């Protein structure tokens, strides 16, 4: 069946992009001026370590061969060691990934919880006061700097109302969720601005569509038309919109993790830049790029499965 072939062969199209990502990150670190050993080991490498690195990365050989060593190492799961943490980068990433995943998931969930009711309210009262308010808020939401919004929420909810911790990440699950509320809300407020605008527009289009009229003609109430026909049809493009914005979302987590001192991948990236821990920068950038590509890939498949019209 076509659908099956699509799911099977679509991943092959990822290959050129993944190769491109590896070339880009390889080139990134190699373009640092100076001795690559110093870059990879930091200023305090022992002679043994220097010799080992030279051998592992083939630093005495031509550049294209170095690239193949790099890919070979990658496929073995070796991205090199962090200068600061002295451990394999993949291990480091594994320790740091949970807060970032939780932050992204929480933000998406929260933004949908905000955007769907707001867009519904605006679309069903088109041209009314609620509609104008929602449009105004979502337009200004696009221009809010996330780092500043986070601090404003801290001033309001943590300092004045004392409802949430100022920063950090807890030990127990409940504690962690408690710590994640404000960071997630910060990102969700900005993300829901984009989602609300688009969702409102597609809901309005669906409300005026022929098929909504036909549903009314068979006696469905406005509420039933909305729930059963308008909502499902306008949510399909929203999946794609979320996927398109995943890069922006990851960028926001990088900033927000710094604002709220959350020990995730983003904070790791920023600290690695200051510490000149280049292999960590390389590794995290590569992980983020692969995540972006994967999410878009999954969204493609999800859209295809959710929307029977998509011809595969």
């Amino acid at each position, binding site marked *: 069946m076509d659908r099956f072939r699509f799911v099977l062969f679509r991943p092959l199209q990822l290959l050129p992009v993944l190769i491109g990502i590896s070339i880009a990150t390889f080139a990134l670190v190699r373009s640092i001026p100076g001795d690559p050993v110093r870059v990879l080991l930091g200023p305090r490498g022992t002679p043994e370590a220097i010799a080992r690195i030279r051998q592992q990365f083939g630093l005495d050989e031509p550049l294209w061969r170095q690239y193949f060593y790099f890919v070979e190492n990658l496929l073995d799961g070796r991205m090199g060691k962090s200068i600061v943490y002295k451990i394999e980068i993949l291990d480091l990433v594994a320790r740091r990934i949970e807060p970032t995943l939780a932050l992204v998931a929480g933000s998406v969930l929260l933004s949908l919880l905000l955007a769907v009711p707001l867009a519904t309210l605006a679309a069903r009262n088109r041209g009314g006061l609620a509609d104008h308010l929602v449009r105004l808020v979502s337009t200004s939401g696009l221009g809010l700097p996330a780092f500043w919004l986070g601090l404003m929420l801290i001033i309001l909810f943590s300092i004045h109302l004392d409802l949430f911790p100022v920063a950090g990440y807890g030990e127990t699950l409940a504690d962690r969720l408690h710590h994640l509320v404000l960071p997630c809300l910060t990102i969700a407020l900005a993300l829901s601005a984009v989602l609300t605008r688009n969702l409102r527009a597609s809901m309005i289009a669906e409300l005026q569509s022929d098929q909504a009229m036909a549903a009314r003609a068979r006696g469905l109430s406005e509420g039933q038309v909305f729930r059963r026909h308008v909502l499902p049809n306008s949510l399909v493009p929203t999946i794609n919109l979320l996927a398109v914005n995943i890069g922006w979302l990851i960028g926001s987590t*990088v900033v927000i993790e710094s604002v709220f001192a959350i020990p995730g991948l983003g904070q790791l990236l920023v600290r690695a830049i200051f510490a000149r821990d280049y292999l960590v920068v390389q590794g995290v950038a590569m992980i983020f790029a692969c995540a972006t590509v994967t999410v878009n890939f999954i969204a493609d498949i999800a859209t295809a499965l959710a929307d029977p019209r998509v011809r595969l």
Partner: protein
Amino acid sequence: MRAGSLRLPLRLGRRYPAFGLGLGVVGLWLLLALFAPLVAPFDPILQDGTIALQPPSPAHPFGTDNFGRDVLSRVIWGARIDLQIAFLGVIFPFLIGTVLGTVSGYFGGLVDTVFMRILDVVLAFPFLVLMLAIIAILGPGLASFYIAMAMVGWVSYARLIRAQVLVLRGADFIVAAKSLGFGPLRIMFRHLLPNAIAGSIVFSMSDAVLVLLNGAAVSYLGLGVQPPVAEWGVMVAEGQGFITTAWWMTTFPGLAIVTLALGFSLLADGLGDMLGVRE
């Protein structure tokens, strides 16, 4: 200055209120930036420990920071840097992306295929992450920010213009220009580009919002503009340490970013309506 040159923006403002409001807000910040030495009541980097962390008062409407610097003056001087960020951060990607996109779309074939693959790879990275990685290599600073911005930001413009060029490439007037024996350079930049550019111009306005926010965020992280220069993102970062006691240090520079960003958004919306371009 001829009287007509002032009347046009006024008339546009009346017909397109969003555009008018945006023009007003951005114009106001431009004037403040231009006349910062005259408008700002105090020196933005002069430290005076005796008046540190004072809340807003008639003498210091936005309060003072931990070094006793007047926050209002720093916000006004900051407009210079942040407007420069929005302008240069848009113009470099715009020029690079437009030229590359036009050439790639016009010639097609292998050039275009390779070009599209490069585009895919740049787009695979989260925008801010790739920028930070490039800044990591170049070292923190405003110059690094501009270079990183140019290296990452051009793809949107290239994609936009390429799509337009692909449509227009077969248009009758291009065929006519070719039949007159014009060279590819002339056809691309005198005939194709003027017809394809409207969408990019509208996009550049909404892109200015993103560039401004990115520039402020990078500076907030400590990787862009360096203290003691007054820049809004830097000021928010400096205020974070005093957030429990001096809310004004973070609030006002942030509001400055919000208003300028909103101004650009409204300009983009209005310009889109005027040129009949929807994103």
